[in-house]
Every structure is written in structure tokens, then in C-alpha cells.
């Protein structure tokens, strides 16, 4: 992978060198190799996998029986042909008298075997296919449901893309494994059966034939890893060109704006050239096996004709057996092919299984206590008592936090990034458990109430409004099924979203694109406000957006905010001056401690950190560079002394 280094940096002063692009797809190659080639047998994975299979034990047994009968029927057909030839058609054996009757009986037998073969084959496909599908569904559901309950700190650390690949790719690998596992029972049985049948007919000719056929197994063992690498590489080159195409489509406006079309076309051509080369090579290697199988099967048949034929002439082999040999040889190749392939499937399944069970093993640390009761929303007060909390051991984010929010009061949490504002709101929802102290909602400790009852009492508006791809109506009444259309419209009107919703092609029934991509940030925010109004909780947590929005929408949002907080207990992570100043009380956080409390005028008069930050006139406290914060803190500290 010498190319990777060359693509890392830009050529500095060497103008003649081509510009390079970091193809991080290539970096994944080793990763992929690891995944595909390394895993071996893992008893634990198998045992737990069996746990998922056992609900279908009975059907599976029927399936396995079907597979066995199927293999036997495949074996029976050439055998019947052999007997027919030997007993009826062979001129040396022929007894003209009842030969016709025997022929009818034999063909009847043959047809009977065919009927069984077809029926059992159908059953085998249906049963195995469906069980595999069932298990896939069960595994995925178990993982997904588990992810709904695992601790938030796990979800924080976890990339969603990675989870998705487990929910899909890994689960599919196990499904494939189950299918092939059952089918390979049939394959082994078939191979074994052919060997036995041939040995019974004539062991010398059988051994000669095996010698030829086993060459195929060896050839495949050599060929398979080479072919797999070639195909893998061709897939990788394809995904690199796909990536380049995707990026160019997404960035087409920049490309055109900077007139970079020619450079990009050249770079793309390099990738497309590589893909062309790689896929032609993969095709060549893949198709080589066809020539190999054809040659070997021809060789085997030639041997049967020469050696078998001579034996027949020498009366040491029946002619029917010779014909059966020819028929059996052709049956040999399929099971050999699929068994060599199954090994790869097995390896992949082991690796996938480990990853799946890893997810299922993530502990659920936040759970209802056995005696937990639903939260009763008496008044909607919130109280933090001596709360200490952190995400990592010995690194507290919040230190001994004490405050009380009275029913109906709005407090603004203010402080630089990392001061612990978001942690406070997350704790209120019991996304995490605190180290010390207690958090009371309407006088009840959050650890003593049922988690499922929290949503009815505490509403939350995130900084980045999160919308689902469904209609606007469904998004506004999210999880509140008894909300009528009137409720939804009323909520939208209250936050001033009604007008723009009605201007959309289908009004409230407009389907939102992924994460509301067809709405502006301000509009998405208003929708998430409306959602909070429909949820109608006594307590509302609101994380204000930091991004700047045009003044017109900004005005709407400020008005909506006021409507939203009306009559609720509000905890707002505030960034905008207007919001901060509108709060009943401001809590200033610094390094996980409350350093100032009071309303705007009081804090300005106090002349501490808040006053200092305020005077810097930044759009948001999060924007202020670290140096300035340090300076302000320094300043306020010296002021205070």
C-alpha cells in the first residue's frame, strides 16, 4: 500500500507533481481483510447462536430431515438408471419375456423418486429459508431493543454507522451462515453417498475417479483466496469510484464555481481506470474456475469411458454401472464448490456473531427500581441537592450543584463550553445516574420513578432540532397519539409555524426529507417547539440553538419561546442575550460549579464573570475564544477580591 503514504499530504513545493486525494477507502482495506480472513471457531458464539435457533427447533428438525431425504433422492436417481439398464436394457441380462414389465416398474420407481425429490426439495428451500429469515429478524430485534435501553454513555461513545452495520451486515452474515450450515449437511451427505455408491459399483474405477475429482478440491483451495482478494479489490475500487462520484454530485456547485471540472475528470478517470482493470482481472480469475471444472469433469468421464468400457468388455463391470458412474461424476462438482465456499461464510459468521453478542452484552445500567412508581407531577418544581457527577471516573463534570427551580419559573443556564450546562439537563432526564446527591422532580427522586413516566412530565427541545422523516403532522405530535389535528394546528399557530407550514405543498401532510432537510434551521426549530407544546409537560428543558438565524426568523423564535415557556417550569441553556435577559433567574456555571445566580440586572451590577462575558458582545457565550474566557475569569476573580 505504498500509495497511501503518497496520498497523505499535498506535494509541497513540487509543482509538477499531481495533486493527490486521500483515499481513506484504501485505509479500510486492512480492516476488511481482518474481518474476512481472520476469525476462527468460537464456541461461545455458537452456543449463544443456538439459543436463537432453539425456538425453531422442531421446524428445523423437519428441515434437516428434508435435506437428508433430498440428498438421498439425488443419489437414488442414477442408481435407478443403473438398475434399469442392468436388469432390463443390458442385452446380456435381457429376459425379453417380462422386460417390459420390469421397465415399467423401474420407470415407475424413477418417477416416484422424482416426485419425492421435488417435494422434499421444495420443503427444504422453504423451511431453511424461512427459519433463517426468522432468526435474522429475532437477532436484529433483540439488538435494536437492547440499544433502546443501554446507557446513554454507551450511545454517546458509539458511532451510529457502526451500529447500523452490526444491525444489518452482521445479522445478514449469521443468516447466511444458518442457511449454508443446513444445506452443507446435505452437501456432505451427498458427497459421502456418491463415494459409497461408486465404491459399491466398482472400487477400482471409483478410486481412479476420486483421484481426478479431488484435484478440483485442491485447485479450489488454491484458487479461492486469490479469487476472493481479486473480487475484494475490485469491490474496493468500485466503492472508491462511487465515493468520488457521490462527492462530486454533492459538491457540484463548488466544482463549477471553481472551474475544476477538468482536474476532477482526470482524477476520476484514474479511479475508473483502476476499477476497470480490477474488475476485468476479477472476472478473469473468477471464470478460470469454469475452465478448470470443465477440464476435470471431461477427464473423469474420459477415464470412465476407457477404463470402465474396457472393464465392461472384460465382463468385470456392468454397463449400467458405467452409465451411473458418468451420472455420478457430474453430481460431484456442485457440493465440492459449495462446501469450499461455506468455509468463508462460516468465518464471516463467527466474526459477525462476536460483534452482535458484544452489543447484546452492553449492560443496561439505568433501570427502574423494582418498586419504582410513575412520576406524579404535583407542581413541576426541580431541585438539585449536592449533585456531583462525571462521565469518567475521578473527573467530575458537576461538583456539588445545588439549586431549586420553583414551579413556573424560568432559569437560564449560562457558561462557557464544557462548564456542565448540558450535563445538568441530561441528568434531569436520568440519562445518567449521579455520583452523589439527589435530583428531585416535584419532590420525587428521579431514581425512584419509572423511566417511562418521565416523558409525560419533562419535555425537551434540543439544540439541533431533530426531526424524523415522516409528515410534519406526525413530527409535531410525536409520541402523543391522542393529539388531534386541532391540537397540532393550535400548537403550530402558537409558535408561529402555521403560516410557513401551510405554504408547503401538502401543508401538515408534507413529508419531511431526512432530518427535515427541506426546511430551514429556523423552521425546524419552530416545529420542535410545536412538538413540545403538544407534549404539554409541566417541565421543559430547552437547549437554545447557537447558529445565527436571520433577524426575521429570530424574532419569530423569540416570540415562540415566550409562548412555549408560559406556565411551565423552564430550564434553558441560553445563548442569546434576549433569552438570557428574559429569564427569571440566571445560573452561571464555570468548571462544573455555580459561580453566580441572579437576574440580568443583578449580575451586571455584581460585575462578575457574567458581566465580563456580556460586555464582550459575542453572539453566544460558546463562541468566545478560550483566551478571552481565561482573561474574563482572571479579571472577575481579581475584581472579586
Amino acid at each position: 500500500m505504498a500509495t497511501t503514504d503518497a496520498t497523505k499530504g499535498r506535494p509541497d513545493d513540487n509543482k509538477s507533481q499531481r495533486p493527490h486525494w486521500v483515499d481513506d477507502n484504501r485505509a479500510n482495506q486492512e480492516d476488511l481483510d481482518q474481518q474476512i480472513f481472520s476469525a476462527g471457531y468460537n464456541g461461545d458464539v455458537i452456543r449463544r447462536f443456538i439459543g436463537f435457533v432453539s425456538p425453531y427447533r422442531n421446524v428445523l428438525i423437519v428441515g434437516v430431515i428434508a435435506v437428508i431425504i433430498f440428498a438421498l433422492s439425488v443419489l437414488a436417481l442414477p442408481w435407478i438408471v443403473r438398475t434399469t439398464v442392468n436388469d432390463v436394457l443390458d442385452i446380456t441380462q435381457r429376459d425379453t419375456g417380462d422386460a417390459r414389465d420390469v421397465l415399467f416398474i423401474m420407470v415407475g420407481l424413477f418417477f416416484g423418486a422424482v416426485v419425492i425429490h421435488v417435494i422434499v426439495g421444495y420443503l427444504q428451500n422453504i423451511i431453511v429459508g424461512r427459519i433463517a429469515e426468522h432468526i435474522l429478524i429475532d437477532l436484529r430485534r433483540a439488538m435494536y431493543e437492547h440499544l433502546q435501553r443501554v446507557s446513554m454513555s454507551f450511545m454517546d461513545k458509539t458511532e451510529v454507522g457502526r451500529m447500523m452495520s452490526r444491525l444489518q451486515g452482521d445479522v445478514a452474515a449469521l443468516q447466511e451462515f444458518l442457511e449454508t450450515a443446513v444445506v452443507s449437511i446435505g452437501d456432505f451427505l451427498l458427497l459421502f453417498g456418491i463415494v459409497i455408491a461408486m465404491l459399491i459399483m466398482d472400487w477400482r474405477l471409483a478410486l481412479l475417479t476420486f483421484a481426478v475429482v479431488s484435484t478440483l478440491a485442491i485447485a479450489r483451495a488454491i484458487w479461492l483466496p486469490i479469487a476472493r482478494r481479486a473480487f475484494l479489490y475490485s469491490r474496493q475500487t468500485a466503492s472508491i469510484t462511487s465515493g468520488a462520484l457521490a462527492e462530486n454530485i454533492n459538491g457540484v456547485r463548488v466544482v463549477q464555481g471553481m472551474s475544476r471540472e477538468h482536474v476532477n475528470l482526470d482524477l476520476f478517470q484514474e479511479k475508473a481506470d483502476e476499477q476497470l482493470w480490477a474488475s476485468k482481472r476479477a472476472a478473469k480469475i473468477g471464470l478460470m474456475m469454469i475452465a478448470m471444472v470443465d477440464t476435470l469433469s471431461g477427464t473423469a468421464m474420459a477415464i470412465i469411458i476407457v477404463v470402465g468400457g474396457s472393464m465392461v468388455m472384460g465382463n468385470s463391470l456392468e454397463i449400467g454401472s458405467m452409465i451411473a458412474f458418468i451420472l455420478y461424476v457430474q453430481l460431484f462438482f456442485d457440493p465440492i464448490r459449495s462446501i469450499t465456499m461455506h468455509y468463508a461464510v462460516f468465518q464471516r459468521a463467527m466474526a459477525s456473531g462476536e460483534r452482535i453478542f458484544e452489543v447484546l452484552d452492553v449492560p443496561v445500567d439505568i433501570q427502574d427500581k423494582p418498586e419504582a412508581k410513575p412520576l406524579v407531577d404535583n407542581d413541576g418544581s426541580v431541585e438539585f441537592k449536592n449533585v456531583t457527577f462525571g462521565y469518567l471516573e475521578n473527573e467530575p463534570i458537576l461538583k456539588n450543584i445545588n439549586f431549586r427551580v420553583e414551579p413556573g419559573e424560568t432559569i437560564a443556564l449560562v457558561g462557557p463550553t464544557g462548564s456542565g450546562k448540558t450535563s445538568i439537563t441530561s441528568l434531569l432526564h436520568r440519562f445518567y445516574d449521579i455520583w452523589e446527591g439527589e435530583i428531585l422532580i416535584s419532590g420525587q427522586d428521579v431514581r425512584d420513578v419509572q423511566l417511562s413516566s418521565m416523558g409525560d412530565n419533562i419535555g425537551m427541545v434540543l439544540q439541533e432540532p431533530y426531526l424524523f422523516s415522516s409528515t410534519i403532522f406526525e413530527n409535531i405530535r410525536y409520541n402523543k397519539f391522542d393529539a388531534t389535528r386541532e391540537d397540532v394546528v393550535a400548537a403550530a399557530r402558537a409558535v408561529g409555524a402555521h403560516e410557513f407550514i401551510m405554504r408547503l405543498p401538502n401543508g401538515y401532510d408534507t413529508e419531511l426529507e431526512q432530518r427535515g432537510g427541506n426546511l430551514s434551521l429556523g423552521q425546524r426549530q419552530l416545529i420542535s417547539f410545536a412538538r413540545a407544546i403538544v407534549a404539554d409537560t409541566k417541565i421543559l428543558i430547552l437547549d437554545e440553538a447557537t447558529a445565527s438565524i436571520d433577524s426575521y426568523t429570530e424574532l419569530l423564535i423569540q416570540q415562540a419561546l415566550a409562548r412555549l415557556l408560559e406556565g411551565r417550569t423552564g430550564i434553558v441553556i441560553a445563548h442569546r442575550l434576549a433569552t438570557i435577559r428574559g429569564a427569571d433567574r440566571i445560573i452561571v456555571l464555570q468548571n462544573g460549579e455555580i459561580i453566580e445566580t441572579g437576574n440580568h440586572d443583578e449580575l451586571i451590577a455584581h460585575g462578575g464573570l457574567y458581566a465580563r462575558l456580556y460586555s464582550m458582545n459575542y453572539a453566544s457565550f460558546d463562541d468566545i475564544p478560550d483566551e478571552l474566557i481565561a482573561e474574563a475569569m482572571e479579571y472577575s476573580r481579581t475584581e472579586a477580591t
Partner: protein
Amino acid sequence: MPSVASTTAPAAASTTTTDQDASGGSFRILMRIVRMAFDYPALLAVGLVFIIGASVFQLFIPLLIGEGVTTVEKIFTDANADENALRQALIWTALGLLGSAVLRGLFTFGHMYISENIAQRLGYRLRMLYYEKLQRLSFAYHDRVHTGDLLTRGLLDIEGIRAFASRGLLRVVYLAIFVGTGTFLMMLVDWELALISLSFVPIAAWRSIVARLQTSRGWRLYQEEMGRLTKIMDENLKGIRVVRSFSAEPYEMDKYDKSSDEAFNRAFHLVGVRSKNLSIITFAFLGVMSVVLLVGGLKVLDDNDPFSLGQLAQFLAFMSIMQNPVRQLGMVVAGWAQGATSGKRLFEVLDQIPEIDDKPGAKDLVLTDGALRFEHVDFAYMDEYGDEQVLTDVSFEARPGHTIGIVGPPGSGKSTLAHLIPRFYDPIAGRILIDDQDISEVTLASLRRTVGVVEQDTFLFTTSIDNNVAYGDPWAEHRNIESATSHAQMNEYVERLPSGYGTLVGERGVSLSGGQRQRLSIARSIMLHPQVIVFDDSTAAIDAATEQRIRAALQEVTSDRATIIISHRLSSLMHANEILFLEGGKIVERGTHAELLERGGKYRDLYELQIRPEDDINVRGSA
């Protein structure tokens, strides 16, 4: 790249074709792909030779097997048979069999590889054409067509055409020659039994086609449902905070179960369809074989009939050798269907004519001082909802060294105005001039090198920071990159990163804040030293103080440029030489900051909305 005369055919293909002409259309599309394949005549010719070779040697095998059995049988049937001669004959038969098998293998490999080779080349050509076309299609086109759709066409539809070329083109010739010759040979041996033997062919072919078409439809339905399920899971996990804060887990599980069950049913259905058709084909084949065994057996027993055991063996061998190609017919037909659909979708894009392109004989823009002038410009977006007038009678001039500020409510046409300058769109009336040259008369490349637009939404490419900054000038020296980055007030941040300028950004890179992205975008634009530079609300996520520093830095290097600033934040543009207030696509107020405040119109209202709350406390620092 080979020339592609055949892809510049019907230009009207972009208009939606109705269902009625779909079949005729499908044929035309397939023929268009076939014509492209004919650009490789030598490969096709060799492929044809290989096909004939593969068919002939393939058919030799049952013949020789039958021959072998007959030879062996002779020792019993023919009293005069010379055993040595027979053994000799047997050896020749076996050698023939071996030779045929080897040649069959090589020829089969050959024709399949040639098919794949042609298919890959077609795919390659289409991929390059597609990429090239997408880059040239105008903004209006990209606005209309969803990026996901374009991507699907570029990936799946090219793949569909490739698969058609690989499996549906030469393979048809092979199947025709193989089945035709096979039928002929069997008829020569015994026409009655030949008809019986071959009677499984139409049934198997029919079911295989039906199965393929049904499964490919079923598969598509399944994929659709899986797509929905993926979206549900993905959104749930990404929005897990919303889900949990609403205690909506049961609702989410319900949503998941519904989609999952549906996917399950569809997968079930697929398994059913596949198993059923597979069984029917197998039954047809083996059932017919029973009949052949019976009729053939009776013929062998009939002493008046010369039909021999060897010939019966021949028939059985013929049947098993014909079985696989016939089963493949479904794949071939499905390949056609796929090729026609994919071809239609791909050619639709390839046949698009870029709405904005160099006029014939367009010359490069000649810069004298770099003055930009709008003369009575009107603009409307044309889309399926009709045309919507966005700009009406816009005139202004930006002289070198001057700044024009543009402000107005959302939807007033500000960004549109910006996009007209590099000709991302063309006005429907009026002219835009740079140094007295109409921009629609000069080459696009020279125009876009002159004009830099810093967009509101910053798109960063998945590559290092320096590659992103040098995007428009990939051969730039590193110190130029650094200086552009430092003008955009981004160098300190970049230098503090562990990998500095080599840090990967973009979709899969480190995540940058909106303001940081915008600063990189500014650096990227000023790298090109555009003579006219347009900031389209491109500092919205940058705090006011940093923005001031950027402006000051730019002032030094751009004092002779025309600058256009579009912004919601009045502090960004209040020092402009002229401020235009746009509303409903018209300039409703214009003048300097002082003049507009004086006038007391909409500009003043906006000013009060933004400035007042801070003014009255009077905590503004140095500003």
C-alpha cells in the same frame, strides 16, 4: 477514451416518456446499448468464434459418451466385433472426450470473459460520460433532481447496463446456437425421442423467466422496505436523545416492528416464489427424463428398432447438458428488462443538454479593472410549478475597490442575485457585464476564475484541509494556502490540530463548527484571487469579532476588487459603498448606511430590530 458517437442520440429523451411507448422505447434503448457494444467489433467477432466453439464442443460430449456406450455394447450385440478394434475405438472416444472437455472449458471461459470485458468497458465509458455530464449540467438541473437519484443512476443503473451487456448480449447468441445445434443433433439421432426430451425446455424456460421477473420485482420491494427499516433504525439511533426524552421507546419499537414485519413478509414471499419455480423446473426436467427413460427403454427393447442403449445414454446426457443453459434464460430476460430500465434512466441524464454553456466562439473574459455591472436584470426559476419571478429590474454597479451590501428578508432573491454573477443561472432579461463584456458571451471557465462566490452552505470535500483550501488551484504552493487560511482567521486553529493542514475534513473527517467551515470556505475562495468576490451570507456562523478581523485582513489584499456582501447582520455591511435593500426581487431602497437610516424606511426598521437591544445598555466595546 473511445469516441462515443452513439450516445448523442435523441435529445428529447429527458421529457418523461409515457407508459404507452415504453415497449418500443425499451427496444430502442437496448439497441442503443447494443450499438455501443458494436464499437468493439474485434472483441465481438472473437466472442462469436468462441461461442461457436463452446457450443460445438459442449455438444460433442453427449455424442461421445453415447458413442462410448455404443462401442462397449457392440461387443455383446455384434458377433463379428473385434475386441481390439473396439478397445482402440474406445481410447479414441475417450481422447475425443477429453479434448472436447478442455476446448469446451477454454472456449466457455473465452466467450464469457469477452462478454464481461465488453460489459466492463461499456460501464467504464458510461461512468466517465456520466461524470463529465454531471459536472457540466447547470445548477438549475441539480436543483430539480435529487442528489440521491443522480447517485443511484450513476451506480445502480450503470451496473444494470453492465449486467445486461455481460449476461444478455453474447449470451443470447450462445443460447440460440447451443440449443439450436443441440436440437438438430438430437433430431438426427431420433426425432420422436428428441421431441419428448426437449419438451421440458419451453416449460423450464418459461418458469425461469417468470421466476426471475417475479423475484426481481419481489427483491425490489424487499429492498424498499429494508430501506425504510434502515431509515427508522438510523433516525432512532441518531435521535436517541429525543426518543428517550419523550419516553418514546414503545412507539419506536412499534414503528420498527411494523416495518420489520413487512420486510419479513416480503422476504418470505421471495423464498416462496423462488422455491416454487425451482421445483416446477426440476419437476419438468426430471419428469420428462422419466418419460425418455420409458420410451427410450421400450425402443431399446424393441428388436425392430435400431435404437440402442448408447443412444439412450446419449439422450440422457444431452438432456442434462441442455438443462443449465435453459435455466439461465430467466437471467438473460431479467437482464434485458434491467438493461432497458437502467438504460432509460441513464440516457435521460446523458442526453440532457446543459442549459448554461459556452456560446459558440466564446472568448475568454479580458480583465481591465474588474468592474461589475447589472443592467435591468430579471430572473425567474422555471420548474414544474411554473415560473416564479425572483428578480425584477435589478441594476447596480460594483466598481473595483468598492463594496456593495445586499440585505433583505428571506426569499427576497439575494442568493439568486449572487448566483447570476458566475452564471450559475442566466437572467431572463437584462445583462450582466464585467469590464463591459456581457458575461454570457465569454467562456465559463474564464468567468468563474474571475468571480468568487463564498456560499452560505459550505461544502467541504472529504480530504485534508490544505486540499480543500487549494481546491480551485490544486498546484498552489503551500505558503499561499497558509496565507489564505490566515486571512480567513483559520490558521491558528488549523495549526493547533495534531495533523495540521493534513487533517481530514468533510463528511468523514473531523467535525468542524459552522463558523470554521465558513472560514475554510472563505480561504478556499480567496486562494483564487477573484477580481469580483461575493459573500453570500457566508459569515452567518462566524462571530462578529472574528468577522471584523477577516474583513480587515481581506481589505489589505483586496483593496482593488469589487466586493458584494450579502448578510443578515447589518454590522457586516454597514460600511459598504452602497447598500441595496431587496424585497420581492426588487431593489426597494438603496444608498449608504447613513442615507438609509436617514430615510427611515425598511432598512432602518431592520437596523432597530438588530441593534437596539444592545445599544440601550450601551455595553458595546470598542465598536
